[in-house]
């Protein structure tokens, strides 16, 4: 087994050994898709939006993947920073540690995506399953980036987790899908294109090429940022 495979595998194992994490991996998508979706629809109407129940159900699967991936990525950096730096210093190097961390984060992101996708499928069916799967994974990838960056920059676990939650809340409740604004600042939110894809896929509609290009660019950008954040956390540095 290569050093990369061994390290990534151990990093995944480290996360999955927390019993609460395992419970939340199932409970959060179920909660979001079965309960939160209805609330999301009502909330959208209150904000002047027109999010139909089916769209709200679809998008809530994406939000569950985003929330879980973001918090997992944050705690992955926050709780393991010291040991990761020691391992890098022992000879593995910050780049290999960062690659192993992102591989572990992606493996968890795929797991979260699968659970969210299955919950959505069982709840309401999906018009375009493949499109929906890609869109949910994009939500997860984007929040791996956000969680990792917050973890690398904010060392305090409480402050960091609140910051991830704040970004998530702004992203979830300020997008054009939730409000009446069809354009403006909301279109620059990180999950704007992924949300469009997921809503369209849930209703069995195709999506314009611009959304596909947009989601690819944002998700790849987020993963690149995540890699840089994991590297930043594993290297020698000046303390804050």
């Amino acid at each position: 087994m290569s050093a990369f495979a061994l390290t990534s595998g151990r990093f995944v194992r480290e996360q999955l050994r927390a019993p609460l994490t395992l419970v939340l991996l199932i409970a959060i998508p179920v909660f979001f898709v079965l309960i939160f979706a209805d609330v999301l629809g009502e909330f959208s109407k209150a904000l002047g939006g027109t999010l139909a129940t089916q769209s709200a159900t679809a998008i809530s699967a994406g939000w569950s993947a985003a929330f879980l991936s973001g918090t997992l990525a944050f705690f992955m950096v926050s709780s393991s920073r010291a040991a990761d730096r020691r391992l890098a210093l022992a000879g593995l190097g910050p780049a290999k540690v960062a690659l192993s961390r992102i591989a572990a984060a992606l493996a968890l992101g795929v797991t979260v995506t699968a659970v969210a996708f299955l919950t959505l499928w069982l709840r309401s069916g999906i018009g375009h399953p493949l499109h929906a799967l890609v869109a949910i994974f994009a939500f997860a990838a984007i929040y791996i980036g956000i969680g990792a960056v917050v973890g690398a920059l904010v060392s305090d676990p409480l402050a960091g987790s609140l910051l991830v939650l704040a970004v998530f809340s702004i992203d979830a409740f300020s997008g054009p899908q939730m409000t009446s604004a069809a354009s403006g600042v909301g279109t620059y939110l990180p999950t704007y294109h992924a949300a469009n894809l997921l809503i369209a896929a849930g209703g069995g509609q195709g999506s314009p090429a611009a959304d596909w290009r947009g989601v690819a660019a944002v998700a790849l950008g987020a993963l690149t940022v995540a890699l840089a954040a994991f590297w930043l956390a594993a290297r020698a540095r000046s303390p804050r």
Partner: protein
Amino acid sequence: MSAAETTSRPPSGLEPGLTREERARALGECPAPGHCVLRAEDVRKSFHRGVWPRRRTVEVLRGASLMVCGGELVGLVGENGSGKSTLMQIVVGLLTRDGGIVWQEGRLGYCPQLPMLWGKLTVDEHFELFARAYGMDAGARDGAVGGLLVELQFERYRGYRVEELSGGTRQKLNLALALMHEPRVLLLDEPYSGFDWETYLRFWEMSERRREAGMGILIVSHILTERERLDRVYELREGRTVQG
């Protein structure tokens, strides 16, 4: 961890009648019979704390220097907050320095003051990961780990997760990870905190055996009661080292 930076020799022109140690110090050479394996010269470090308008700069190291030779046990003492751990982390490469030179020869082992471990991984999984980082094959790893588990007497905890271990056993793992690749230079930051008396004595026996085998060892502590076991002691005062 073998980044080496060359240092310039101070000019000679020595007073006659100097002892070997005084002469070596003046020449920037090792006072012990072995050759130098670690040298830090004029290391400076400041930390910036707080945010404007309460931002302040704390100057921790103002030109700290030390030297460790092969086959030598050296102590580094100082009051709480004197910068011992900062100096250690700079020497190891965990922290960047503002100025000065750090030079080291061969493989380095580092035992941090607070165990830097993954709470949910087992003792064996830690050895597995660090062996890979040190470039050890399975045979070398098993041999080294087996010996250390017996020496430090914690073989029955191999399958335990770190979060399930007592503070003392965590510290044993912390130390074993620094020793498993038989480094040329060993840096120990308060290595025996949490050890019981027997383990404490065993720790010194282990250190002395390794010194006899040619390892250069630097031990950091805020109080060193075992000065007779050490070849030399540096004291950190106001950011500078003074050899005691």
